């Protein structure tokens, strides 16, 4: 009876997390079109519903009623499995992200490792989709994506090692608590190179512009999902946005103090904003990082493939290795408010 109750509570928690998450995924697509629209001096979607607010729902309806086409000689099972494989890890990772002190689904002690493991699984969706479609373009996209993700995974991992050294814990709750203080105590300042490396690797890992060579619509049509249609395509689309939100949430948790208020401990301002719940701060930080994602897409042209590889292997990995040494010295010397 008691176990049944725990299971029900856990399920309710998961629902309470996933429903807002899926709504945000839907409206992130809307935000992207609006933001990029304004950046390019147009208004973006404004016809469906008041000010275009029902656009994501209209898109979802359209995709749901479209036919799913299976290419001839495609590997049917894997073809259907691939979108789920890319969406699943993006949702499962939210289990360890804290929205407040202890407000998380799973108190996993090795939370950071769990996240690293899950984010590295997303590539399977892309690779399997590319291979099972039985199409040249899809296959090329899959190959590009595999090489790219392996390169950036390493830089990303090293960046997180820096966080782990500074906080002395793999538990995300502990990592946020270790950054307690005002916004200068957060890890973005002492770990600035790692923060930059992590965020850019995150953009690369989610196959977003300027690193979206796996899609590369101008050269390989739409890359790995060229053969997908209807709901199967929609799931890929949602997975991309869910992954963006996840990367933004992780960066906010590990480098921008998670649920902590930026004015904590500052006289006057600190008391003024003390009533704001932690979850709001986290959402604000995530929204800011998501805006950066959209901004990148509107600003930068797509990287050439060899430039991507060079950036990953020859710039990011050395930078993180050097900064790990600096963090080690900082931890030994208990420098500043950051390293206890």
């Amino acid at each position, binding site marked *: 009876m008691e176990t049944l109750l725990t299971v029900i509570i856990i399920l309710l928690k998961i629902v309470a997390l996933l429903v807002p998450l899926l709504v945000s995924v839907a409206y992130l697509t809307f935000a992207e079109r609006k933001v990029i629209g304004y950046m390019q001096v147009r208004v973006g979607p404004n016809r469906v519903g008041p000010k275009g607010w029902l656009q994501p729902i209209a898109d979802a309806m359209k995709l749901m009623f479209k036919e799913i086409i299976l290419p001839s000689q495609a590997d049917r099972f894997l073809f259907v499995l691939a979108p789920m494989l890319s969406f699943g890890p993006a949702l499962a990772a939210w289990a360890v992200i804290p929205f407040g002190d202890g407000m998380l689904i799973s108190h996993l002690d090795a939370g950071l490792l*769990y996240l*690293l*493991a899950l984010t*590295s699984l997303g590539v399977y969706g892309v*690779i399997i989709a590319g*291979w099972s479609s039985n199409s040249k373009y899809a296959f090329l996209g899959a*190959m590009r994506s595999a090489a790219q*993700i392996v390169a950036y995974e390493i830089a990303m991992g090293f960046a997180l090692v820096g966080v782990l050294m500074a906080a002395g814990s793999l538990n995300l709750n502990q990592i946020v608590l270790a950054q307690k203080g005002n916004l200068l105590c957060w890890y973005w300042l002492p770990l600035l190179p790692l923060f930059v490396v992590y965020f850019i690797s995150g953009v690369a890992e989610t196959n977003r512009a300027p690193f979206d060579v796996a899609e590369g619509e101008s050269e390989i049509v739409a890359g790995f999902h060229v053969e997908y249609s209807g709901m199967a395509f929609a799931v890929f689309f949602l997975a991309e946005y869910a992954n963006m939100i996840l990367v933004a949430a992780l960066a906010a948790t590990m480098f921008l103090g998670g649920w902590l208020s930026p004015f904590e401990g500052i006289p006057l301002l600190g008391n003024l904003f003390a009533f704001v719940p932690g979850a709001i701060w986290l959402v604000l930080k995530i929204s800011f990082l998501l805006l950066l994602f959209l901004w990148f897409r509107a600003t930068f042209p797509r990287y050439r493939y060899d430039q991507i590889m060079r950036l990953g292997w020859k710039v990011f990995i050395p930078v993180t290795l050097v900064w790990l040494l600096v963090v080690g010295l900082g931890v030994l010397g208990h420098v500043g408010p950051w390293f206890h």
Partner: protein
Amino acid sequence: MGFEKFLFYVFALILIFAAVRVITVRNSVHAALFLVLAFFTSAALWLLIEAEFLAITLVLVYVGAVMVLFLFVVMMLDLNVDPVREGFIKYLPVGAAVALLIVIEMGLVVGSSYFATDQYSLVARAADYSNTKELGSVLYTFYVYPFEIASVILLVAIVAAISLTMRRREGVKAQDPGRQVRASRDDRVRLVHLAPEKKK
């Protein structure tokens, strides 16, 4: 039968099924994916004995990195299985002998006193027990020399692999980003002043 035991048998069955499919399935990409499934279920089995660090590392290293590269290579090969199977009967005795040897060796190791698992029971740990911390403290104190030696050997392997495949070729048109960045307007643009032509 407790819930944990039930989970163990479920995962064990999946693991054995996946492992058998790795060597019996005809399509090499499917075989690689079954290997991924096998890694995943063994990670789940390790989670059941509360070895969460090892379990997650298994997924991170093998599923997240090694198998991606594996799939990368396997997908590029358009393998035709039939010529490989031609010598099946011819090599059967040798293969069987090797397999038998391995079975005997495994039997000796697993069946010996080192692995008599019935002597040990699962140690109950407090809820705040950190497997990761424990592993780290042992690895960097008691086993520090074996650990360092193993890492140096890996480093040597990396350097060796790179130096074996690195070749200097003539006439490669590789770009030098440093030079590209240093280039200024004067290097690329030449303004020519032409006297205007006179109409005759």
